[in-house]
């Protein structure tokens, strides 16, 4: 038991603590948050000769295999910019943090980069879950995140710039392509998380409006390697194509099963939206040759900017390392931020944002000329359908001809009303 004095002193201390806590209450919800109280936003430290930028990627855990390549691409851009004299006369100092494939950790590290390192901008995140976890952190602190991966759309945060494709730059063109190739029915296979479920919702709405048939829809848990049931269902359905939103390791098992069930790219092609050059290498070209992908960039994309990017990347990280769409989007995002800062003439976040929102931020990227769409903070991107070759590279078979205007809420598509 507590001693008499012990019990009393403990009670007193708890009481003091509670009173201290209650008297220290701040703003209520719905109050107009005063800039003095809740912080007028993140402060960028520009006092030194260098300005810090944050790199927030999973360097450990299941996502590390993909996200490390993105971190490398961001570092390449930072090094190039520093070698060319930096931004506004300041060198960039990258501060890398490990999100550890764990969403709460992403939130913690984002806060650390903003309040401890006082970075000018953060580049990174891959999964939608990690983006959803850090979104409130960036909005609360009024700090900038550049998100480089294709995603499911239906989001616009005032403090996030999305340099990967939204649905109307990847999934919708992919469906258009399948339709024009005479595929009248699809089977949907995906991992069980946000992106596939939302993507499939959009696909079903598209199909309903365009007369395409959706013959089935199956989800496997993230990391699952058991696909015999799903592949049998796909085979029995007799669909003319498969739309694949599986992520990571699951693809290996799926494509092996697909091949051993006797299904071929000629008879029933699989169009994947999460398989890039890096993944092709780990799945094995013998299972993938002839299958289709939808992205905005391939290592084989033509153009002087891409030749330079591929060459620089291989020189820095190894000749056997392929470049992929998310890497290119991450690399591009650093240059887009540089252009915004230079246009604003300041590292101050609100000024950088204002410069971007006014429009006219462009960069001659490896994928071609990209332009930031001011209001939505997304990027104009050319949609590209590719065919996986036996050499592990992806050859473009179709493109949208010009960069597609981003439409994260699919407002310009009549069939998409009611989706968001």
């Amino acid at each position, binding site marked *: 038991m507590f001693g008499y004095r012990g019990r009393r002193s403990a009670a007193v201390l708890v009481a003091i603590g509670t009173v201290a806590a209650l008297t220290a209450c701040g703003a209520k919800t719905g109050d107009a948050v005063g800039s003095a109280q809740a912080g007028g936003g993140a402060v960028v430290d520009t006092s030194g000769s260098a300005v810090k930028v944050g790199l927030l990627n999973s360097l450990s855990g299941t996502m590390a295999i993909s996200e490390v390549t993105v971190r490398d691409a961001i570092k390449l851009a930072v090094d190039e910019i520093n070698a060319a004299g930096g931004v506004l006369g300041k060198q960039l100092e990258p501060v890398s943090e490990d999100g550890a494939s764990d969403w709460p950790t992403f939130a913690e590290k984002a806060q650390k980069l903003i309040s401890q390192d006082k970075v000018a901008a953060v580049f990174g995140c891959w999964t939608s879950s990690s983006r959803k976890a850090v979104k409130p952190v960036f909005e609360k602190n009024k700090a900038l995140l550049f998100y480089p991966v294709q995603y499911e759309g*239906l989001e616009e945060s005032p403090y996030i710039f999305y340099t990967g494709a939204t649905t109307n730059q990847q999934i919708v063109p992919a469906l258009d392509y399948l339709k024009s190739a005479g595929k009248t029915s699809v089977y949907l296979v995906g991992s069980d998380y946000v992106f596939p479920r939302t993507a499939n919702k959009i696909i079903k709405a598209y199909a309903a409006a365009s007369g395409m048939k959706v013959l089935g829809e199956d989800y496997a848990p*993230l990391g699952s390697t058991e696909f015999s049931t799903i592949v049998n269902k796909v085979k029995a359905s007799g669909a003319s194509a498969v739309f694949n939103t599986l992520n990571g390791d699951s693809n290996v098992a799926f494509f092996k099963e697909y091949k051993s069930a006797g299904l071929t790219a000629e008879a029933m092609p699989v169009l994947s939206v999460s398989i890039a050059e890096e993944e092709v290498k780990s799945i094995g070209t013998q299972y993938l040759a002839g299958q289709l992908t939808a992205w905005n960039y391939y290592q084989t994309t033509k153009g002087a900017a891409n030749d330079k990017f591929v060459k620089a990347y291989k020189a820095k990280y190894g000749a056997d390392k392929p470049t992929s769409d998310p890497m290119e989007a991450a690399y591009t995002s650093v240059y887009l931020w540089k252009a915004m800062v230079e246009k604003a003439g300041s590292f101050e976040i609100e000024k950088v944002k204002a410069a971007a929102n006014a429009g006219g931020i462009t960069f001659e990227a490896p994928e071609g000329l990209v332009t930031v769409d001011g209001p939505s903070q997304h990027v104009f991107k050319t949609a590209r359908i590719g065919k996986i070759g036996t050499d592990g590279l992806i050859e473009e078979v179709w493109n949208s001809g010009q960069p597609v205007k981003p439409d994260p809420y699919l407002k310009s598509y009549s069939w998409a009303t009611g989706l968001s």
Partner: protein
Amino acid sequence: MKRAALGFGVTAALLFAVAPLVLGDFRLSLLAKYLCFAIVAVGVGLAWGRGGMLALGQGVFFGLGGYAMAMHLKLADAGPGNLPDFMILYGQLDALPWWWAPFANPIFALLATVLLPMLVALLLGLLIFRRRVRGAYFAILSQALAAAFAILLIGQQGTTGGTNGLTDIQGFFGYDLNDPVNQRMVYFVVAAALLAMLGVAWQLMRSRYGELLVAVRDGEERVRFLGYDPANVKLVAYVVAAGMAGLAGALFVPAVGIISPALIGVVPSIEFVIGVAVGGRATLAGPALGAIAVAWAKTALSERVPSAWTYFEGLLFVLPIVFLPGGIAALFKWRRRARLVPPAEVKEKVAA
């Protein structure tokens, strides 16, 4: 007894006076997170250290408490009659699912954060302990439960947020969580809760029940032959530990702003136990200290060496268990015994 009072006093002074003065807003909010883990650890210390039940599934109770709190806060953010943002985005729902509805009531939600985990633990415990499931079987069972619960939540994206969990929580019972002053308040609430839970554990450990619990741990059959029912003795510790984990989960939500299946599956459940092992499972302060130390080390190491910190973390788990089986707490005991200092000096040392 005097020492315990002093210990509580010093802890309270550290938590309520020193930490807020020394630490900035960001570090203080991290400390609030560590203290939440410490609350879970106090419960694990009771169930495992004192009761011998290797509870490898505390994530379930942490999650139940966390989701109960987050569901209420999401509903409060959305406002009466509205669906939470993620349901509109991912679900094809016209109305709130029936099992969400009661959480709109703040009193129900607050009670549920603690009572729901306790109820689940009670039902489970009745089944498990009556059937005399123990040792590795108990550990495996609790682990499987944690895995199952996480998979269940991920599958129900439209109503639970799936892998994303529940995020973007703006308010805490009317207070704006974006305001640093309110974040501080949350820290104080967490610190007070930890002190209170330490008090509860201390009471239980010192009581006759506590003696009985240790007796069950060390010789379950003997206790049975003495006429006690070991199942009931274990059940109490297990249910109390579950309640503490639930409370910790509930406080974690305003402190960190997110609850997701990543916090309740197999790995986090093991991490709770590792903190306790590092700290010294059979003592009062050991589990809490260990949990804080492990969580702090995780942050510190990953900030210093972002690309190789997991190896250091692994080393950190292995070394204390090999070289210091009694945990950090044993270190203090050993020093005290070795130097044979008179009580007056001990007091000075602790106060310093």
